[in-house]
C-alpha cells in the first residue's frame, strides 16, 4: 500500500466537495451540461490511462467499449419500453464490455508495441464499420434516437433521471467510481504488478507474473468502466450515433492522458476537465479546435512529456520543502 500524503488527500477531498456542491453554485444549464461532459471524459480518460499509463499498452480501441455501452443501453431502452432500467443496462455493459475486451485483447496482446497499437486500431475501425453499416441493429448513420431518460430503481421505487442536476449526480457517481477503482488498483498489489509489467515485462515474467494476464486484467477493467460511461451518455444525449466510436475520441483521450501525464491520476483528471471545459469556454469552431488540440499535444509531448504531473510534482516539492520533511510523491511514468 502506498499512502497518500496529507496534502494530496486534502486536495482530493476538496475536489470532491467542490464537485458535490457545484450544481448549487453554478445554475446556468449550459455550464452544468458542460460539467456533465467533463465527468464523462474524466471516467473515460481515467480508465484509458489504466491501459496506457499503468500497463504501458497503447490501445487505440477505447471508444469501442464506450460505444458498446452506449449502443447496449440504447438498444435495451428502445426495444422494450419503458426499458429495463439502469441496473440491468449497467450489468449488460459492465459484464459485456470485458468479454469484448477479451475478444480484442487476446489476439491483440500477442502483438508488441507498435503492432499492438495498429491491431487495436484495426478492431476500432471494424467496430466503426459495423456501427455505420449494420442498419438493422444500429440504424447506421441515422442513429438510435429518442432514448428515454435513465430509470434508476431503488428499494421501494423508481427514480427518473430527468433534470440536469440529477444527471450530474449520476455521472459524478460514475466518475468517482472510476477514479476510486483506478486509485485502489494503483495502490494495491495488483497495481504494483501492473507497474512491474509496464517497466520490464521480462523481469516481471521471471518473477512469476504473466505479463499478458496483467494486461488483460487492466484492459477488461478499463473496458467495463468505459462502457458504464457509455450507458449514461446514451440516456443523457438521448441519441447514439456511430460517432461514439470515432477516432476523434481516441485523439481526445490521448491528449488527456499525455497532457495530464501518463500514469498520473491527478494529472489525467485535471486534463480531462481542462480539455472538455476549455474548448467550450473558447467557443471554437470544431476544426480550429482540433488544430489547436493537435498543436498542444505535439508541443506537450516534445517539450513537457510529463504534462500536468510535472506541475503537480513541482508544486508538491515546493510545499514539502517549506515543511522540510515531505511525503514521497507518487512517481509518474516516463514512457
Amino acid at each position, binding site marked *: 500500500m502506498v499512502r497518500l500524503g496529507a496534502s494530496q488527500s486534502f486536495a482530493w477531498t476538496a475536489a470532491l466537495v467542490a464537485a458535490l456542491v457545484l450544481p448549487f453554485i453554478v445554475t446556468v444549464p449550459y455550464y452544468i451540461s458542460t460539467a456533465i461532459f467533463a465527468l464523462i471524459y474524466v471516467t473515460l480518460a481515467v480508465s484509458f490511462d489504466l491501459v496506457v499509463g499503468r500497463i*504501458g499498452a497503447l490501445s487505440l480501441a477505447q471508444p469501442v467499449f464506450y460505444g458498446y455501452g452506449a449502443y447496449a443501453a440504447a438498444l435495451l431502452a428502445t426495444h422494450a419500453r419503458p426499458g429495463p432500467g439502469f441496473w440491468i443496462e449497467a450489468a449488460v455493459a459492465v459484464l459485456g464490455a470485458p468479454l469484448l475486451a477479451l475478444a480484442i485483447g487476446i489476439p491483440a496482446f500477442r502483438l508488441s508495441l*507498435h503492432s499492438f497499437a495498429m491491431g487495436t486500431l484495426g478492431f476500432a*475501425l471494424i467496430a466503426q464499420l459495423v456501427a455505420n453499416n449494420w442498419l438493422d441493429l444500429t440504424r447506421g448513420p441515422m442513429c438510435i434516437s429518442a432514448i428515454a431518460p435513465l430509470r434508476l430503481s431503488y428499494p421501494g421505487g423508481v427514480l427518473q433521471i430527468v433534470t440536469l442536476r440529477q444527471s450530474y449526480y449520476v455521472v459524478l457517481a460514475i466518475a468517482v467510481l472510476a477514479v476510486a477503482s483506478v486509485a485502489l488498483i494503483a495502490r494495491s498489489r495488483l497495481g504494483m504488478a501492473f507497474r512491474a509489467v509496464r517497466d520490464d515485462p521480462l523481469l516481471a515474467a521471471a518473477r512469476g507474473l504473466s505479463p499478458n494476464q496483467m494486461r488483460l486484467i487492466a484492459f477488461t477493467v478499463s473496458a467495463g468502466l468505459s462502457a458504464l460511461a457509455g450507458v449514461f451518455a446514451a440516456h443523457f444525449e438521448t441519441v447514439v450515433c456511430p460517432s461514439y466510436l470515432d477516432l476523434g475520441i481516441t485523439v481526445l483521450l490521448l491528449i488527456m492522458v499525455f497532457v495530464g501525464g501518463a500514469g498520473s491520476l491527478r494529472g489525467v483528471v485535471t486534463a480531462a476537465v481542462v480539455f472538455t471545459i476549455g474548448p467550450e469556454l473558447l467557443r471554437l469552431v470544431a476544426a480550429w479546435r482540433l488544430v489547436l488540440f493537435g498543436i498542444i499535444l*505535439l508541443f506537450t509531448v516534445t517539450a513537457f*512529456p510529463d504534462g500536468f504531473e510535472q506541475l503537480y510534482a513541482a508544486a508538491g516539492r515546493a510545499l514539502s520543502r517549506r515543511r522540510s520533511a515531505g511525503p514521497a510523491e507518487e512517481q509518474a511514468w516516463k514512457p
Partner: protein
Amino acid sequence: MHVFIDEVVNGLTLGSEYALVAAGLALIFGVVQIVNFAHGELYMVGAYLLYLAQTYLNWPYVPAAALAVLAMGLFGLIFYVAVIRTMIGKGWQLQLVATLAASVVLINLAIVTVGSIPKVVVSPLTATILTAYFVRLSAQRLVVLVCALVAFAGLYGFLKYTKAGKAMRAMSQNRDAAVVVGIPIERVTLSAVVTGAMLAGVAAVTIPPLSNVNPTMGASVTLQAFAAVVMGGFGNVTGAIVSAVLLGLAEAIGIIWVPSEYADAIVFGVMIAVLLFRPHGLFGRAARA
C-alpha cells in the same frame, strides 16, 4: 471473368497507392523506429499541392505533378524539422502520439483553409479508355502502375547503390553500430523522411485524378499502409510494398463477395489474421532491403 479482371486492375491500382505510402512509412520506421501516423496526411498535402499548381498556376498536368512531387520533398524537410527531429530518442508512445497530433493538425488545417468540400484535379488521361481484348481501363490507371513501378525501381537503386541508401539500410539493421562507424543519424533520417514524402507525393499526383482531393483522404490510406507495414514486418520496405499490393488485391477482389461498405474490414481482417499466425509479419524480422 470481366468483373474479376476489372477488379484485379483496380486492386493493383489500390495496391500501388497503399504501397507508395507504405514504403515511406517502412523506410522512416526502419531508420528511426518512429511510426509516422501522419504519413497519409503527406499524401493528402501532395494532392492539394497538385490542386494548387493546377488551379492557381494554371499549369498542365505533367509539370504540375512534377512540381508537386518536388514540393513534397520540401514539405518532407519541414515535417522532419517540426516533428520527427524533436522526437528522435524519445519513448515510442510519445513518438506515436506526436505524429498522430501532427496528422490531426494537418487534416484540420486543410479543413479550415481549403474547406472540406472535395476538389477536382484533372489529368488528360483519366477519360482516355484503353481497350485490350475484353479489358477496358482508364489510361490513368496505367499511369499509376507505371509511376509506382518507376518509383520502386528508383527506391531499390537508391537503397542498394547510393551512399545515403546504404546508410539507411545500415541504420535499420543496427543503429548503434551505424553510430559507431560515424553515420550521421540526423542527416540520414532527414533523407529518409524526404524520400518517404516524395513517394507519398508520387501517389498523390497519380491517384486523385481518378477520384478527388479532400482533407480526410489520407486517413484511410494511412491505416491501409500501416496494415501493409505491420504485415510486411515493421521496417521492411520490400515486405511493406509486397503486402500493400496483396492487401489492395484482397480488398478489390473481396468486394465481389463482400458488401463494399466493409472493404476496409477486409484489409484489417487480413492484417489481424496474418498477425495472429505470424506476429512479426509475413516477412519476419530478417532480410531488410
